[in-house]
Every structure is written in C-alpha cells, then in structure tokens.
C-alpha cells in the first residue's frame, strides 16, 4: 500500500509499505477513504515531538471502510463505513471507565501522561496513522463508529478531531450565558471553538490570529468579531480595552506549541526545540482573561517544559482546564448539531489533495500558503 512516511524534520514522502495486519483480536484494518492534515501534525513535521521516528506514518484524522476484523470484534464487519476518533482507547481501564477516553492507560507503553493517538510519535504509543491507504485500528468495538447514513464523509472526517476538539475547548471553558469568549487561533480548531461558544450561550465571541484570510473565515463561518494581533503593539492591552478593562470571561488557547508573536518564544520552541512548545498564546490567554475567569487549553504542547506565566494565573485566581479531547464522548451531541444544521464542519475545508502530493500539502499548510485552512488527503486518487 501507499503511505505517507516521515523522513526527518520538514521532510515527508510517499512510500510502499505492507498493509497492516491484525495484531490483537479486537483490531480492525480500515481502508482509508479520507484523511486530514491537522495543525498538530505540524509539531511532528517540524521535529518538535520527542520520539518521532523516521519511517512512521502520520495521520490521526481519517475515515474509511472496514477491510478486515479480528476474532473478537462484535460491532463492525468488513464493508462498514467508519469514522475513527483520533484517540486509541481500551474502554475499560480506570480512566476510560470514567469517560476519560483520551487518557487511556492500556494503550501507550511509552508514556503515562498521554493516551494513544494514531500516527503521533512513539510518545503517543507508536501507532502508524491514517495518511495511508490502510491503517490498523485497535479496539474496534470501542473507538470507531459507523458513519451515519445522512452524514457527509467530509463532515465525518472533521468529527474525528477538529470539530470535537473545538467544541471540547468551549465546553472546558464552562461558558455561561452572556460570557465574553476570546479564542486565540483561527485555524480549524479555533474556528470550531468559536462556533461552539455561541451554542453554549456566549454573548460575545472574539477570535485573534495573525492571518487576515483566517480571520475573514472566522467572521463568515463563526460569526465572530476578529482581531489581528499584528496590528496591535500589545494584544493583551487590546483585549482589556475591548472588554472595558475587565478581561474576557473565558479564553481558549487553540494555537498550541508553535504559537507566533514572540520571536524568542517561537524560535526557542519551534526552531531550537528548547521548550515543549511556544507558550505565546497561552500566556496571552492567562493575561487576557479576567480575574477568576477560565482558560481552556486545547492547543497541543510537547512534554518538555515551557515558559508559562504561572504566577499570573495563580494571582488572578484562574481556572485552567485542558485535555486532549475524548472524541467519542462528544459525538452524540455533535451529530445532533450537524443534523440540525447548526454546524457544517466541511465548510472549513480549503484543499483536497491526493496522497501522492502529501509533501506539498504539508509545506502549504505549514507555510500558510494559498489561503490554506484545512487540507483533506484522498488516498487512491
């Protein structure tokens, strides 16, 4: 089969690999029909995530058709169209039994601090991902679910991470009716977080980014107010000014490890790998939220330390909430919103590329070329 393969920082290519085989009785092998490149894939691509090995196939957002199932699989059969959450989880450990599917303890030997994620380094379990023609899906009775007949395949692939994570970010904010919500980052997850904030009753939603084309999308897609931080000497002061010096009730960090806006922070983290991530957006979030407010972190950071302004968070009495999204727990409510027409996830897709063009796809997304917001990968075309 053809698969995207990591060749070192900033380098990927397509190679021939063996079709994955059943390695556990509850495995399934899925033929991928749509995959996506996620903003967090860029952390791997840029060599920021420890234990990212040459030869690994990335891709944690994908849907497809069941090709083969293991001997203990009861709920899926070959031919089923399935959507697969980016989390790999057993469904039965202490954490899964309490709904913390993204924190499963039975699927990642390499680390206890993070669960299993498809195609996301050995730090997240060493599983190959779905930017390929086929992928191994562990715990087929627990993770994947049939795509509802009424759901478009491109909407489904966005439910496997970006939409679920964006909604989760708003949910972590514990938004109350009338709250002012600031979202740092107008990428796919930030756009979905902004849209979800309205569903939870926000009175005002402000999206902050540096790219005008993405802010335009935030106005159209998420009906949000927008601020380009490059137009302000100090974005924290601007956030105070626009909230009558109170600060926002809830701030969502939808940027993560490669946040820009501070040369020192960005270069030390993204280029020199001396931090687990560049905490520019997180520090802006801490300083822009009101005292007693909530900061929700859904941007991904590496496991190494980062220079976070924890003193400000403590002195302001903030609630900091964060996690990898437990995707499948979000689905029933999200499916209702999609069916009711409140959410149309595929509206954010800007590019569709064949798997063979994956190297250009990564560069385009990384360098923010051609108005790129979300790129889907279509294997076999």
């Amino acid at each position, binding site marked *: 089969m053809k698969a995207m393969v990591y*060749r*070192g920082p*900033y*380098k990927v290519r397509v190679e021939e690999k063996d079709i994955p085989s059943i*390695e*556990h009785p509850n495995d399934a092998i899925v033929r991928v029909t749509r995959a996506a490149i996620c903003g967090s894939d860029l952390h791997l691509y840029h060599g920021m995530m420890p234990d990212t090995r*040459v*030869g690994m196939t990335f891709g944690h957002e994908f849907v497809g058709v069941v090709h083969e199932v293991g001997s203990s699989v009861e*709920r899926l059969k070959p031919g089923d169209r399935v959507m697969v959450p980016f989390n*790999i989880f057993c*469904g*039965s450990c202490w954490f899964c*039994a309490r*709904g913390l599917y993204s924190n499963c303890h*039975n699927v*990642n*030997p*390499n680390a206890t*601090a993070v669960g299993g994620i498809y195609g996301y380094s*050995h730090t997240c*379990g*060493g*599983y190959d991902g779905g930017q390929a023609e086929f992928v191994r899906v*562990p*715990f087929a*009775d*627990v993770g994947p679910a049939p795509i509802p007949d009424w759901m478009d395949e491109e909407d489904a692939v966005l439910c496997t991470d970006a939409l679920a994570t964006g909604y989760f970010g708003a949910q972590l904010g514990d938004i109350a*009716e009338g709250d002012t919500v600031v979202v740092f980052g107008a990428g796919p997850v930030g756009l979905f977080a902004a849209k979800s904030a*309205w*569903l*939870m*009753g926000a009175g005002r939603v402000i999206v902050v980014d540096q790219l005008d084309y993405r802010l335009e999308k935030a106005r159209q897609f998420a009906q949000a107010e*927008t*601020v*380009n*931080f*490059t137009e*302000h000497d100090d974005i924290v002061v601007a956030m105070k*000014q*626009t909230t*009558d*010096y*109170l600060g926002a009730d809830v701030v969502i960090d939808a940027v993560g490890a490669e946040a*820009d806006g501070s*040369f020192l922070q960005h270069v030390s983290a993204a*280029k020199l790998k001396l931090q*687990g991530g560049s905490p520019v957006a997180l520090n802006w979030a801490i300083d822009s939220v*009101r005292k007693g407010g909530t900061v929700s972190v859904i941007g991904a950071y590496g496991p*190494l*330390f980062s220079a976070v302004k924890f003193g400000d968070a403590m002195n302001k009495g903030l609630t900091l909430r964060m996690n990898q999204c437990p995707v499948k727990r979000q689905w*029933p*409510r999200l499916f209702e919103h999609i069916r009711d027409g*409140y*959410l149309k996830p595929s509206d954010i897709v800007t590019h569709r590329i064949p798997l063979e063009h994956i*190297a*250009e796809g990564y*560069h385009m997304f990384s*360098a*923010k*070329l051609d108005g790129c917001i979300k790129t889907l990968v279509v294997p076999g075309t």
Partner: protein
Amino acid sequence: MTPIPKSDGDVSRHAAYLPGEPNRRVDREALRARIPGWGADVDPADRPSVPRLRYDPSASGAHWEFPERQPERWPRERSIEHAGLPPVFGTSTPPRGLSGVLRRHAYARYSEGRAAHWLLLIAADRIDAWESHLASFATLRPDNPITETGVLAEFDRHGLSSRIGQRRADRSHLWLDPIVVAGPWLLAGAGAVAAARALRRRRAR
C-alpha cells in the same frame, strides 16, 4: 476587524472598577436570529460529560474487564512509570541503530518527569534522521530534500503572494527556515567534500 476602544483615563467609567449587574442580560432573540443554534447548549446538562468523571464502564462498548494482551514481538520500550507493559501498543518503527540505543536508554533509565528522558529522545530523533538519510544513499531511492520538503509548493501555491503585503508574524523569523532545513545538508555536503579532498591529498603523497 473589531475596533478597539481607548480609555479616556477615568477608571470610574469602566466596568472593571464598578460592581456591575449580578447577571448579564443578552438579547436572546437577536442572537438566535443571527447565529443558528445560539444557546442550544446553554444548559450545562446538555453538554457531553456532565457530570464529570461519571463511573460507567459499560458506556464504552468494551466487553472485557482487562483486554487480551497483544504479542510482544520485540522487547518493547516502555515508560518506567508504568507497572509493566500495557496490553496494546503500536508496532511502528522499532528502535534501531545508535538512535535506538539512545531511545532504549532514555526509557530504561529516566521517568517522564526527568528532562533527560525527553532531551535524549529528541537527540535520538536527530540522529535517527541522519542515520536514515545516510542509509537512503545506499538504496535506489535516496532522500531528496527538494521533493520531500514540498518546497515546490512555493511555486504552484502562491508562495510570494501569500506573504507579500501581509502582516504575518512569521516574517520575523522566516530567514531561519532555510538555515534550519538546508543548513545541516550544506554542512554535511561541505564535510563530505573536505573529507574527499583530504583523502585525495593523502593518496597523492
């Protein structure tokens, strides 16, 4: 873009310095008219995972208390914060070469709480890349930094117009990218040329 108001310097005119209302009022009908679905999840009970940490092991679909164990086909490196090897794990790219030695040492010696664990793994990643690049030159498909970086997308994905006239924050460090990506290749190339010259000089003697 949202206009940002400036202060007139009188703090008594601003919300942060006054008690405000106990509950902010919003124009629900106007918001619903403008934003489809506004307030659909305003009741926290409608949001997933409410209440938090609800104990319900049957909700996941798991039909086991502890999963069957996946065969361990090679000694699988694991965090020493685990009690043993978890039952299911990825089998992509087993450790190999010098980078593999470093990875195994990082896992065997240091917990996730130690910076040495992560710094060794990052060092192993860089070594792995160079081991793989060198190994690729002994194959029919050597690494090609032009095609593998996807840099040709600069030409057909509007590299110039995506940057010119834009106030992008990455312009301050854009000059670093060629150094980070191409620098090691140029250094390695220069080293190879120097080694070849030195060898030729030695033979000429």
